[in-house]
């Protein structure tokens, strides 16, 4: 009886094919696990949670209720104020969450570790996006509840649903901006850079209920936050300065450009 050893070159492909493929269910579970823990981490970080939730709520209470006094509000202005603050509230989680969070993870070697591990494509980033969307949903719900309960704002269910949808989807381009910042700067530098972009953008895009100087009004259109607010106004059935479809295209294009440059940077330097 003779024993024949198969030559490695013959058995190699067989063994490779025999390696178990990742079932779709496990792949989805990996994305879900990343997302779930990302939300959990956010909830465990009051330093992030309080400013992103408390700040829009406080500002809205001040401008939407306290300044309003007891006189019944002009319904259209009340909705405009509400729109501005809900959109303000969804930009923060995206820009801060991804901008600072991702820059930190890059600095701490976590991004490199996950690239070496078999993490499914972009699972960490999709987890962060999901977390930012969850936080946004929470703040929008809070703001809409305050608006209808205390600020005498009348909303139909359809208006509320459309405004919420715009807000939650509106997180995407600002997460893309956050990712771009996070891929360019270190974790220590990220908070300064994010603040430097965030606050001027919020003011200059006319989200706050005080009129911009004339010269800046047209320039507001260069900011993505302006276009998000246009979509939100349209969702609430208010007049807009631009065709909302144009604003939607601007936001999609903006997100695409941010993602392109972030991906290019990450492929070069990791």
């Amino acid at each position, binding site marked *: 009886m003779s024993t024949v050893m*198969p030559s*490695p070159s013959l*058995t*190699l492909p067989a*063994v*490779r094919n025999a*390696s*178990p*493929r*990742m*079932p779709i269910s*496990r792949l989805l*579970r*990996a994305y879900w*696990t*990343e997302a779930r*823990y990302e939300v*959990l*981490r956010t909830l*465990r*970080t009051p330093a992030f949670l309080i400013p992103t939730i408390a700040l829009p709520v406080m500002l809205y209470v001040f401008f939407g209720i306290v300044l309003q006094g007891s006189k019944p509000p002009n319904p259209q202005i009340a909705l405009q104020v509400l729109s501005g603050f809900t959109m303000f509230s969804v930009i923060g989680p995206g820009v801060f969450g991804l901008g600072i969070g991702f820059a930190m*993870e890059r600095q*701490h*070697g*976590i991004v*490199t*570790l996950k*690239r*070496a*591990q*078999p*993490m*499914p494509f972009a*699972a960490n980033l999709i987890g962060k996006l999901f977390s930012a969307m969850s936080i946004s949903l929470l703040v929008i719900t809070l703001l809409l509840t305050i608006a209808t309960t205390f600020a005498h704002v009348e909303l139909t269910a359809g208006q509320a649903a459309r405004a919420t949808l715009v807000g939650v989807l509106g997180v995407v381009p600002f997460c893309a901006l956050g990712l771009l910042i996070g891929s360019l700067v270190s974790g220590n530098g990220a908070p300064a850079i994010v603040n430097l972009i965030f606050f001027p953008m919020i003011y200059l895009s006319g989200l706050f209920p005080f009129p911009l100087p004339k010269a800046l009004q047209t320039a507001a259109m260069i900011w993505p936050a302006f276009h998000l607010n246009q979509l939100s106004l349209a969702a609430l059935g208010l007049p807009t300065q631009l065709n909302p479809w144009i604003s939607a295209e601007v936001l999609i294009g903006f997100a695409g450009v941010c993602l392109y440059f972030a991906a290019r940077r990450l492929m070069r330097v*990791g």
Partner: protein
Amino acid sequence: MYAPQPLYPGPVASFTGVYKRYGNVHALDGLDLEVRPGELLAILGPNGAGKSTAISLLLGLQEPSQGQVAIFGESPRMMDARRKLGVMMQEVTLAPDMRVRELIDTTSSYYVDPMPMHEVLDLTQTASLANKPYGKLSGGQKRLSQFAMAICGRPKLLFLDEPTVGLDVQARERMWFTLRELVKRGTSIVLTTHYLEEAEALADRVVVLAKGRVIASGTVNEIRSVVARKKISCVTALEPRDVRHWSGVQDARRDQQRLEITVTNAEKIVRQLLATDNDLTELEVSRAGLAEAFNELTQETAQ
């Protein structure tokens, strides 16, 4: 206990004529290296030898300038290949607010057939850390948690970069025990280490890198025997200057009552010593350790 996993017939990882240049710096200069199935391979080398570069090519973090790097016959960038890989890196600061159990759970989710959580915790003896936030752990506990993350996916090739830095003696022994256990189960392990005794204790094979290429490869004993020198130590009235001129003596010095002699031909010198000093006692002959071999090898390359 698990039966050993079926062995992969070819090398589990290979470098074939790999060059990696950063500008004018040749980090890898024609590296040829294979990791065989089921072996524990220790990669040694001084700083700047190309260890880190070799590692990042193996993990698919960088591309070689020239040559081929493969794990399980595939590019390290292929997800199917990386799913057979477990990784423990240096200089990683994991999220401080995540609990150890959650970190392991996240990593487990990337693999096709990960170990159940209790098995990971048992095998790495981290059960007592499972519910603690990562940021509250000691340096050694952090390393153990990262080790648990590295093995939780039942990797066929486990890559560990300086795994026991910062561990106390007990924790290090425990990790060594686990590594031996994993080798028994059929896992191939590549580790880099600064602790030569770690390589001596664990490695089936040692590879010494210098200036981006392999300068020596073999079992610990083979590497040690590359260096022919031996040490003779004895209590004698002879002084270093009496023996220094003997042929085959490389160095002689006095260490309190003992005379320490480094020689190339121990038997000849021992005969000569015994003939010269009848009162000589406590004679010891020892082979150069891995540390001496390593120093000599890397110094030769540097010259």
